């Protein structure tokens, strides 16, 4: 286990701040940036990097969702339904991690994130918004006030089985690789299930806490969670996500989509090349 020095603590704190800021902007949770940094740059064992990242994912999810609660942006009913799938996937991820070669998983992960990024780019102008506020959103749909357009956005959930399968897979990947899994759920919910990007990101960020907890508890039991390093990363991510939230309110949906697609391509290349080793 790495020794905690003041300089190492500072580096991890700053990395956490950047990861948290980007995570809050994109609704990703920040883990997608932190795991490669801790594993590839600082040379931590993959399990330790994943465990630290999962604790920051929990902290981001909790603080971001606490700040958003009351704005109707988080679709709680849909989130709680999909949590059954993500938590199940996360649990199973702990077991399957022992059976599948890491390289195979990383290559699969690389291919998948590239596909999702392309879906995001091809659907950049689609908003899936039903403008009539009197329409019935159904049990799982939602309604929220959007500051950008000054109007009420109402949506229905389409293709629920797709959302459930994607959530299960996201939970599985989360537990295996130490990320939130939002990068799978957000594009799927947005592109296929008719949920506006903001609501999809808020709902995903809300669910990620439960998903990451199911995985983090197992790493904690393994003794792979160095408390001091996790503390540093968590505090950095808290600061970053607070800053990201402030900036995120003024960032446009189109920019969020382009930024997210670019991030997905970078992750794809990194994961694939790592899997080839």
């Amino acid at each position: 286990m790495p020794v905690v020095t003041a300089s190492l603590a500072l580096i991890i704190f700053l990395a956490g701040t950047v990861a948290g800021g980007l995570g809050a902007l994109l609704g990703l949770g920040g883990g997608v940036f932190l795991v490669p940094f801790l594993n590839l740059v600082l040379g931590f064992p993959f399990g330790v990097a994943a465990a630290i990242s999962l604790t920051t994912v929990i902290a981001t999810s909790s603080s971001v969702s606490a700040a958003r609660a009351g704005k109707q942006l988080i679709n709680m009913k849909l989130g709680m339904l999909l949590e059954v799938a993500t938590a199940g996937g996360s649990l199973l991820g702990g077991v399957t991690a022992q059976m599948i070669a890491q390289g195979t998983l990383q290559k699969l992960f690389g291919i998948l994130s590239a596909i999702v990024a392309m879906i995001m780019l091809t659907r950049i102008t689609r908003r899936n918004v039903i403008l009539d506020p009197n329409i019935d959103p159904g049990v799982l749909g939602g309604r929220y006030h959007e500051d950008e357009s000054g109007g009420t956005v109402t949506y229905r959930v389409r293709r629920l089985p797709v959302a459930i399968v994607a959530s299960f897979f996201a939970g599985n990947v989360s537990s295996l690789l130490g990320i939130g899994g939002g990068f799978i759920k957000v594009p799927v919910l947005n592109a296929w299930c008719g949920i506006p990007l903001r609501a999809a990101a808020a709902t995903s960020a809300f669910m990620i806490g439960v998903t990451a907890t199911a995985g983090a508890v197992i790493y904690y039991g393994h003794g792979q969670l160095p408390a001091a390093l996790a503390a540093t990363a968590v505090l950095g991510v808290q600061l970053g996500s607070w800053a990201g939230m402030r900036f995120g309110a003024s960032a446009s949906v189109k920019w969020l989509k382009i930024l997210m697609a670019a991030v997905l391509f970078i992750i794809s290349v990194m994961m694939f090349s790592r899997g080839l080793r």
Partner: protein
Amino acid sequence: MNRATDTAAEGAARRLETVVGGVLRAGVMLSSVCLAIGLLLSLSGSAASAAALVLQIGILVLLATPVARVLVSTVQYISERDWPFASLTLIVLVELLASVVAALIFNKKL
């Protein structure tokens, strides 16, 4: 849809959001304070055992926060007799409990 039931459902959703938001905020604040104090103690080099204890408490509060959030949701759905969602959140709680059991099993093996 009936207008009256629609408003009732929206009111219930709003109450749940407030309660859930409060639980998340409290959990994040408590764990962040513990982690910050524990970190400062361990970096100062004094009181190593106290530092380790406070850090562990901070991590455990952090891990318990989403569980507490699901728990209050379950209670709220039961009190509103929303059985489908009471069942769904209960399943999530069972899954989280299963991960604790898995962690304990792995811990014994190692």
